[in-house]
């Protein structure tokens, strides 16, 4: 079986890299926590790394660069300044890129999502802005997988199934330019780019608190048109084991937490 190498990319303020690495390790991949400077070559030569040598790129959650300017903006600007070509090549090669929470914010600021016209837009086409509540929202959230087609992230999560991934963010409201909101949402749906939407325990689309942020169309996670770049606000890497589900003593026992299938899908797509 092929050794699947995962680059878990971090800068100062990233704080979910351990769980992200553990998630990939627990499905048999080989994750490495890599600082952005190692990819940019701003480090001792034995620490230098090449993005192209990895099979999967993971942008974990956290508060990169202190969330200064806007969440994810500084990480994105630093990636764009020295790594743009490598990232575009990585995505165009069809390799999986996963951004969770702050990672999703980075992908949007980078222009890798929603990427309606091409691999990477010059300026952001969307924004992940302050939750309607104006607060940090942290609780279990239920998501329905909505993609019709099969992609690198969906093989283990059938369409229509509901998973529980916890949310923990203050800026998770997906927004498009106000005048083009309807048009852009239509394009997202036509392109089959909406992967996760917030639902309530009955499986219905519901408002606050089931949707923690007031996101357009209850959207929790979207992918690029090719399906190999996925960004989502909730944290699959926090539910690898059943014991991290809030109802694990009451519900029917299963070994796996809901998050595992996402990582298994991504790693399985490489093998």
């Amino acid at each position, binding site marked *: 079986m092929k050794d699947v190498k995962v680059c878990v990319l971090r800068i100062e303020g990233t704080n979910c890299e351990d769980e992200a690495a553990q998630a990939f390790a627990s499905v048999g991949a080989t994750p490495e926590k890599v600082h952005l400077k190692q990819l940019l070559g701003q480090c001792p030569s034995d620490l230098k790394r090449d993005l192209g040598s990895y099979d999967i790129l993971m942008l974990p959650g956290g508060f990169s660069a202190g969330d200064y300017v*806007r969440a994810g903006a500084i990480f994105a600007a630093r990636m764009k300044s020295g790594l743009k070509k490598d990232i575009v090549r990585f995505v165009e090669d069809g390799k999986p890129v996963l951004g969770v929470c702050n990672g999703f914010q980075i992908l949007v600021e980078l222009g890798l999502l929603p990427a309606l016209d091409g691999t990477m837009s010059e300026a*952001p086409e969307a*924004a992940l802005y302050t939750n*309607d509540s*104006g*607060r940090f929202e942290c609780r279990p959230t239920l998501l329905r997988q909505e993609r019709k087609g099969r992609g690198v992230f969906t093989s283990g999560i059938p369409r229509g199934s509901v998973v529980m991934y916890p949310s923990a963010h203050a800026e998770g409201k997906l*927004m498009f*330019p106000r005048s083009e909101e309807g048009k852009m949402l239509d394009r997202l749906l036509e392109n089959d780019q909406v992967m996760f939407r917030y639902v309530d325990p009955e499986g219905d689309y519901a408002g606050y608190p089931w949707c923690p942020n007031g996101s357009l169309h209850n959207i929790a996670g979207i992918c690029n048109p090719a399906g190999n770049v996925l960004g989502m606000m909730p944290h699959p890497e926090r539910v690898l084991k059943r014991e991290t589900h809030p109802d694990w003593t009451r519900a029917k026992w299963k070994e796996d937490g809901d998050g595992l299938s996402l990582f298994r899908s991504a790693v399985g797509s490489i093998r």
Partner: protein
Amino acid sequence: MVVAEIRIELKPGVADPEGKNTKKALELLGFNDIKGVRSIKMFEIEMDADPAVARRECEEMCRKLLANPVIQKFRVDLR
């Protein structure tokens, strides 16, 4: 030397939860005449450049990092 004041604010119609929450808190403190509160971000950038160049560069900074055009607009004032 010029000093550029860059003002980043939400576009009209974009909800401003920070402004709304601040208004609520101020009202709890007894300020009852408030009609509205908007949150605005300001950067002050000192530059060693010709004013015309400084303005152009500041606008470029806004496009490249300081503002997200989907929800924000910017204004550059030199002094």
